[in-house]
Structure formats: C-alpha cells, structure tokens
C-alpha cells in the first residue's frame, strides 16, 4: 500500500558523472516489496520546484529500513536534490506502480535484463530477487560514455554483465541491442528499462519471447488521478483505450502498450 514519510538521508554520494546514489531511511521501506516500483520525491519544501520527481527503487534493505535510489542530475529538481545533505530529510510518497514480476521465471530459467542509462537502477533489486530464486541472470547495460557507467561491480556480482557505450569508451561500442545480437543463448524472458527508443528496439528484437518493459512518462500525481501519464493500448484500433504509466505500469508486459 502507498504510504508517505519524511525520510532521512543516511548517505548521498556521486557515483558517476552526474549520477548520485541516495540512501533513505524510514518505516516506509517496509512497504517496498516489488522491484521496478518507484517513489515520488518532494526534493525540498516550498513551491519551486513544485512537483514531485518519480525515481525508481534501486535496492531495498528491509533490515535497516533503508532503500537506495540512483538518479541523474538533469533539471531543476534533481539539481536541488543533489545539494541535500546527509541528515536532512526528503518527503517520499510510495511505493508507486506495479513492478517487475519476479515469479514469472522459475529456478534454472534464464533472464535477460537490459537497462539503458538511468533506466538501469530498478534492474538491480530485480536482479537480486531473481538470483535469490535461482534464476540465471544476464545483464546488458548501456551508457553514453565510460564516465557515465555505474553499478558495474554490483551487477557483476549477480550474473554476467555486458556494458555498451555509445561512444565506445567502455565495453562494446554502440547500443544494448548490439550486445544482444551477440548473445549465445535465448533467454526465457527479458526485463528492460531505459529510453523509449531502446525499449522499442529491445521489444522488436525479442518479439518471440515474453518481456517486461518499464516505461517513463511525465507525471503529475503519480497515483493515477490526473491522466498525465497515459499510453495507448497495443492493437486498440479505437485509440480510446489507455493505460496509466504511474498506476497501471510503470512495468507492462511486452506487446501490452504502445511504446
């Protein structure tokens, strides 16, 4: 169930170019159970920035009552967030939306996790959960450039991890699909999160297997009330059906919605 809490910043550091790792502590963590869900953060009090920011849950530590999010500083809100110091608190609404189904795969099956840029974080908790179940996990992570790469070691600890960078400064030069082309096995399912173009390419490439796709959209409320974040339903000729990314998603089955 969705809750809300002023959560304490217990650690906050830069881990790659413009990428921060933020660890928050509070009872709200107890409600976080499904990887791929997100939280809605009010980065500061006051009216500027006004809206909350949707950020994925990257990992959950129920024992410590802590969860981690990774975010990229891009606009006004994340810029302010990056200045908030350890000990301060931020207001968190969440967990929101529906995450990746962890139990879709059984022990011994093979999962392919494909993340692009700031779409990588939610795959981390997912990968932990899948490996706990005995699912074999392979990661393909795409970044712009070497300096933007993060959490490589963390993912490597869980399964094979391939990195692609657009400028070739690290790993394979090119896109995640370029790495996927060279895969020596057929996964039983894929899980992906990243920029829309990447999601489309991944869905097209793996059209024969089932996948779970986490979408992004500009949000107002984050809880399904304002209809800011809708997408069309795949195959709907009336063009009148819709899903809300915030509350029906952000994770959809492949082929469910129009990317």
């Amino acid at each position, binding site marked *: *169930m*969705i809750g*809300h809490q002023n959560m304490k910043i217990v650690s906050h550091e830069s881990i790659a170019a413009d990428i921060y790792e933020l660890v928050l502590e509070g009872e709200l963590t107890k409600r976080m159970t499904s990887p791929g869900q997100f939280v809605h953060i*009010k980065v500061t009090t006051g*009216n*500027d*920035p*006004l*809206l*909350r920011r949707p950020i994925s849950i990257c990992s959950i530590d129920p024992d410590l009552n802590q969860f981690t999010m990774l975010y990229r500083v891009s606009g*006004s*809100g994340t810029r302010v967030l990056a200045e908030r110091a350890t000990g301060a608190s931020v207001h968190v*609404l969440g967990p929101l939306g529906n995450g990746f189904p962890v139990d879709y795969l059984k022990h011994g099956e093979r999962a392919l996790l494909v993340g692009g840029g700031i779409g990588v974080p939610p795959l981390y908790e997912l990968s932990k959960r899948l490996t706990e179940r005995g699912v074999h996990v392979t990661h393909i992570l795409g970044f712009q450039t070497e300096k933007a790469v993060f959490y490589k070691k963390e993912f490597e600890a869980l399964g094979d991890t391939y990195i692609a960078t657009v400028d070739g400064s690290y790993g394979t030069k090119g896109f995640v699909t370029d790495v996927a082309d060279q895969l020596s096995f057929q996964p039983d399912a894929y899980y992906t999160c990243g920029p829309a173009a990447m999601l489309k390419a991944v869905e097209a490439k793996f059209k024969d297997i089932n996948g779970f796709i986490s979408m992004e*959209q*500009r*949000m*107002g*409320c*984050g*809880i*399904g*009330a*304002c*209809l*800011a*974040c*809708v*997408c*069309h339903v795949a195959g709907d000729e009336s*063009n*009148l059906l*819709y899903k809300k990314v915030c*509350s029906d998603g952000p994770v959809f089955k492949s082929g469910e919605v129009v990317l």
Partner: protein
Amino acid sequence: MSRFGIELPGLTLKNPIMPASGCFGFGKEYSQFYDLSLLGAIMVKATTREVRFGNPTPRVAETSSGMLNAIGLQNPGLDHVLQHELKWLEQYDVPIIANVAGSTIEDYEEVAETISRAPNVHALEINISCPNVKEGGIAFGTHPDTARELTEKVKKVSSVPVYIKLSPNVTSITEMALAAEEGGADGLTMINTLLGMRLDSRSGKPVIANKTGGLSGPAIKPVALRMVYEVSQKTALPIIAMGGVSDEMDVIDFISAGASAVAVGTANFVDPFVCPAIIEKLEDRLKEWEIEHIHDLKGRSWMDIGETAYHRT
C-alpha cells in the same frame, strides 16, 4: 453550529474545502488515502457526451511554482461516468459537483440534463474555460454573449443548480461573470488555468505535445485572488474559488477576497493528503483567531469593518 457549515445553491457543505475538477479524477485514487466523506464536496473530472482519449503525451510540464497541463478532457464519456464513477461515489456522504464539457451547445445540454439527474450530483460546474481542446471549451468562456446563451440553455435542462467556471484568459472577467449571472447561473467557479507554455531549451520545441497548456498552482494565486476580489464585488453569485491553494492560509485569503468556498487542484499532486490536512489546520486557525464561522471572514478584503456579510445557515 460548526465553524464550517456552508449553504450554497444545491450544496450543503460540511466545510469549504473540495478538490478541483481534473485534479482528483473521480475520487477513487484518493480514497486509498482518506475517507472522501471528510470533504466539503468533490468536483469530478470533466465529462463529455462521448468517451475521449484527450491529447497526446507529454501532457504536463513543470514551471516555477506552477505546472502546465494539456490533458484534453480525457474521460470515459457520459454513460460510463454515470454507471460507474458516480455510482461508486454514492458510498460516500459527500455532494458531487459534476464538471460538464463539450464541443457544441447541444453537447453541453445533453450532458447537463443527464448528469444532473444522478442522485449524488448536487450541482453542475460548466467548464467553459478549458484551454486545451480545439473546439468548445475556452471559446465559450471568452465571449460574454456565448457564455450567457450557454448558461441559459444549460439552466433550462439541468435539474440541479448551475455554476459557471470562468476562464482567466480574458480582458474582463467581471464582464464574463455578469454574463453568466444574466444567463441565470446559480454560482461561479473560478479560475480555470492561464494559458501558458514551456519550451525544451535544448531543442527549442514545446515540452507539451499540445504545445500550449493551462498554468495552475501557486504561481497563479495572485491572479486568481485578484479576480475573485473583482468579481465578488460586482455580482451577488456565490463563488467557489481556486488557483494555487495549498494551505489553510490560502483558503483564508480566497474567502477574504470574497469566495464562499475553495477548491484545491494542483496541490493534490504535491501532497495527496492536502485536502484533509487543510480542513484540520483551517479549523485550528479559526479557533486560534476566535472566528466563529469561516464566513465571518468573507469579503473582508474589500468590505468595511462591520459590514461583513454572512451567507451562513
């Protein structure tokens, strides 16, 4: 008597706070956070005759102390609203104000006539001020003659009192208010959003797919307050005010400007618990100030001391 009880045409309000149309869906999402019966009323999302998908995405963008939206009147259509959304809301002890939109006068008439018969719909809010659709919407809200005519027609068919929702995108909002009054409106709701836009600085292109959108939130409060102040001095119609309300002080300001009740829009997105929080803090504040009834503050921005008019029960 409570500090809060308010009688308005069609509406017996437990308190002066209600969510604004389009910022609360049909209530379902917020019902997970609190009991909707706590609210003074609910202004539900605009309803049109047919189901509408609305505009392409992105539909929202943030601005300094505000946000732009161009949802484009997405809604499941009159029948579905009646059979599902309003039906579902019947479990709560809260009057519903149905927000009516359309592309032609006939659209408005048909929706108004039908929806006004729903048992929990106690008033209509006629949306002649939506800036985000090509036909209808704001066009009706910027010409006094059209607004008067539309009000008359809707009044004829509605079985509950009719509030006209005014657009701030006009030279004289008082003129529009008077046109609505002449058309027989029972009340006014104001303001809808200011037409604005945001560009992506890098590409230079509009952030919102619809290009322009409606500006709401604290940024527009000064404009909304000024308009309520102006209009409340010129018409006898009760006003439900909105525009940037996010705490109990904002509510007091709008009541002081001349409003009878206050709606909360964008602030619901910032804090889903904002409506009950405001109700509680408003009650505390009135107690602290030893104000017997919220309407003792009504219009005090422009009334001489002692002149304060009571519109209470």
